[in-house]
């Protein structure tokens, strides 16, 4: 039987298909009913070494909705960590104050090191350009809710596929389900070769494109991402690719997309998705953002063994 009790959530690579489906089913339950006493007496420590208002609030809210407590430090600069204390020492001490740790860090691998160091479960809330696994769970959850299944879909990925960690993680997770993947990006922002090779080795059927218009009629789902200026060392390179894709209501309606075509976006957006799309049945990105609560409630409950 599948159980996530005491499991760390560090990387989507650590999860089997069964474990993913188990967590998504539990998120459905969390959406249907409330469990205000489920984590009563449990303490969550949030350690955000890099600011992220939305992710942090979402975890704190999820914990409180299940009756748990949240502790955190106000600002990383206020802790002894900047005074040269090692992360290992710091998390060992925090382990004594809490039942579970949620950590975001600008250094990649810091959550893994934390999980290796402490005996309580650890959730990675984002480590640099590496992983943000709870985001991947909520992306999967949104697709599952919108399409009824994760099997056999044609999924398009659009935008910055080179640096976009949400894209890499979602593609990795969807490879558990026989999906067709279409990678749509400017040539300079293609999926990295090692990511493609790994998908190939896992038997995924994929293709690469630069035009959205040419392939959109084949898609069940589009995962749209923003091209992040901060990833470019050279501003000229950024100028070349920014604004490559601008989806709008009139554009999408003018193309022969499938009637139940759905668009996801991890938000925030820049100009790749016009606000005119928000009111169309294609847009599910606000539902996606709202799924953060049930999904994080489910993950907290599951690893604390409360359900």
């Amino acid at each position, binding site marked *: 039987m599948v159980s996530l009790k005491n499991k760390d959530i560090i990387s989507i*690579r650590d999860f089997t298909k069964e474990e993913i489906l188990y967590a998504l089913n539990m998120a459905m339950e969390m959406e249907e009913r409330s469990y205000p006493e489920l984590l009563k007496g449990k303490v969550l420590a949030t350690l955000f070494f890099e600011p992220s208002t939305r992710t942090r609030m979402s975890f704190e809210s999820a914990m409180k909705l299940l009756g748990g407590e949240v502790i955190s430090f106000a600002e990383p600069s206020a802790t002894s960590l900047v005074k040269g204390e*090692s992360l290992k020492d710091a998390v060992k001490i925090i382990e004594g104050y809490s039942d579970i740790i949620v950590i975001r860090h600008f*250094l*990649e*691998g810091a959550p*893994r090191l934390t999980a290796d160091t402490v005996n309580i479960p650890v959730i990675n809330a984002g*480590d*640099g350009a*590496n992983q943000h696994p709870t985001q991947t769970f909520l992306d999967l959850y949104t697709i599952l809710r919108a399409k009824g299944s994760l099997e056999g879909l044609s999924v398009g990925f659009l935008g910055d596929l080179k640096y976009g960690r949400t894209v890499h993680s979602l593609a990795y997770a969807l490879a558990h389900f026989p999906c067709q993947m279409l990678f749509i990006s400017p040539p300079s922002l293609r999926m990295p070769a090692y990511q493609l090779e790994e998908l190939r080795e896992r038997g995924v059927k994929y293709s690469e494109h630069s035009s959205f218009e040419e392939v959109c009629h084949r898609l069940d789902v589009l995962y749209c991402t923003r091209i992040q200026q901060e990833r470019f060392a050279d501003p000229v390179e950024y100028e070349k690719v920014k604004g490559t894709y601008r989806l709008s209501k009139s554009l999408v309606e003018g193309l022969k997309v499938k009637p139940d075509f759905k668009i996801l976006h991890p938000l925030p957006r820049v100009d790749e998705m016009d606000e005119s799309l928000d009111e169309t049945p294609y847009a599910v990105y606000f539902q996606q953002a709202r799924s953060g609560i049930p999904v994080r409630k489910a993950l907290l409950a599951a690893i604390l063994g409360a359900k």
Partner: protein
Amino acid sequence: MRQLQVSAIKDGTVIDHIDSKSTFKVASILNIPAESRLILVGMNLSSRQLGKKGIIKIEGKVLNQEEANKIALIAPNATLNIIKNFEVVEKRRVSLPEELVGIVKCFNPNCISNHERIQTRLKVVKKAPVRLRCHYCERTMEGEDIELL
């Protein structure tokens, strides 16, 4: 009995067929400078296979396979000879372990292993050509990106 280019040992281990210029690196990975036993190290010995080879002889210690595998990344052709009473009683090849601990540096400057005092851990995801994935930051590296500590 033929003449040995490096003196004989009675019981122990001979690591043969090391790419000559990697001999000291191999010795340091095996932590040989800290050993108190008799160690004989030869370099630039002529070899039909490698042109020039290095050799390390350790008296009184039988290196196990796991220890020997640590050197596979830099000395993939090495052979391990177990010597008993001056005779070679066993000959083994080295092969890459599943994980390299404290041997390779992670090439990602943003990786926690380059900031905290911890041992690096690189998983071997492919053996030929070698591809490694960092246990911490999950970045993969191959070829020139692979740098020894």
